[in-house]
C-alpha cells in the first residue's frame, strides 16, 4: 500500500512546485515558439557583430628543456636573501623618518621641546653641533654633527639621562669620514614609538 501511494505523493508534490511559466510555455502554440526562437537568433547575431575579435596569446617556446624560468617568474619564486641586521636597522630608521614626516605638528609642544632639546645638547654634549632640530606631535628629529668619532661614540653617555631624552631615543649613525652625523628620533612622554 505504502509503495503504491509514495509515487503518487511525489508526483503531486512535483506538480505543485513546478513553475507555472514552464507549464504555460509547454502549452504555447508552435508558431509562438518559432517567433521566440527567431527573435533569439537575431539577438545572438547582433551580439556577435558587436563583440571584439579575441586575441590569443601564445606562450613562447621554452628555450631549454631544463625548466628554466622567465626572469620575472624566477624572481618571484627564488627565496629573497634575508636582510642583515644592519639593513633592518636602516629600514627601521626610514620608517621613523616617514612617521615623523607624516605627523601633524603640535605647534605649542613642538616649539618648547625643540628649544629644550637644543639647550640640553649644548649643555650635555658641547662637542656635538645641532644641525637640525624639529618636533612634530609624538616625535622629534635631531641631527647632530661631530668632528671626531669619539664625540659620536660618547654622545649616548652624555644625553641618555638628560630630561628630553629619558623617555626614549632611536639612534641612526652616519659614519661618513669628515661628515659624522647622528640622527636622533626622540619620543614624547606618553607616546610610544610603536603606536
Amino acid at each position: 500500500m505504502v509503495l503504491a501511494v509514495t509515487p503518487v505523493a511525489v508526483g503531486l508534490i512535483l506538480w505543485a512546485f513546478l513553475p507555472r511559466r514552464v507549464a504555460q510555455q509547454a502549452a504555447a502554440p508552435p508558431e509562438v515558439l518559432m517567433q521566440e526562437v527567431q527573435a533569439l537568433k537575431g539577438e545572438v547575431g547582433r551580439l556577435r557583430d558587436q563583440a571584439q575579435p579575441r586575441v590569443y596569446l601564445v606562450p613562447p617556446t621554452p628555450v631549454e628543456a631544463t625548466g628554466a624560468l622567465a626572469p620575472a617568474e624566477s624572481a618571484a619564486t627564488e627565496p629573497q636573501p634575508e636582510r642583515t641586521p644592519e639593513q633592518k636597522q636602516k629600514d627601521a630608521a626610514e620608517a621613523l623618518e616617514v612617521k615623523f614626516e607624516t605627523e601633524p605638528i603640535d605647534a605649542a609642544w613642538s616649539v618648547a621641546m625643540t628649544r629644550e632639546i637644543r639647550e640640553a645638547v649644548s649643555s650635555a654634549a658641547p662637542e656635538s653641533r645641532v644641525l637640525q632640530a624639529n618636533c612634530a606631535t609624538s616625535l622629534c628629529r635631531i641631527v647632530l654633527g661631530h668632528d671626531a668619532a669619539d664625540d659620536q661614540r660618547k654622545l649616548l653617555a652624555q644625553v641618555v639621562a638628560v630630561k628630553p631624552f629619558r623617555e626614549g631615543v632611536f639612534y641612526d649613525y652616519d659614519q661618513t669620514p669628515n661628515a659624522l652625523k647622528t640622527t636622533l628620533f626622540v619620543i614624547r612622554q606618553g607616546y610610544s614609538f610603536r603606536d
Partner: protein
Amino acid sequence: MKIIRSLGAIALASLVVVTTASAEERGYSAALCSSNTTNTFFEDFGINVVNLSPATVFCGAAPIVGADVNRIQAAVYDRNSTGDVCCTMLVLGADGMPISSASRCSTGSSSSVQTLSVVPPVNAAGSVLLSCNVPPATPSGFSRVSVYRVRSSP
C-alpha cells in the same frame, strides 16, 4: 559544510599559535649583573647595595641577534625614600653602538617589587644592556635589581 568550517577553524587556530610562538621572552637573574663598585653583593633576591654609597649595576641580555627587541623590563626594589632605582635600558647594534635608549625610575620607597618597563622602537638588536643606578641601603633594607626580562620577535 561543517567539515570545511571545522578545517578552517583549525587552520586559523594554528595560525594564532604560530604567531604567538614567533615572539619570545627571556628572563635573566641579576646574578648575571656586574658592578664597577665594591659595595654590592648578590644573594637570592638580586644584586644589593650594602652601604651608604650608591652603585651602578650593569646587566646584559642575549636576545637572538637581529631580532626586534620590543620590550625590556626590570624588577627592582626601592627601599630608599630619598633616592630611586633608575635603569637606562639600551638596545645595542651589532657593532656595540646603542640603537635605542630609554630611562625609567622607581617611585617612592616600599618593600614591594616595582617593574620598570620600556618599549623600544623597531630595531635589529645585537644585544641588550641595562645600566641601573641603585641608591644606598637604609634601615628599611637594601635597594636592588632583582630580575629582568627581554621580549623579542625574529
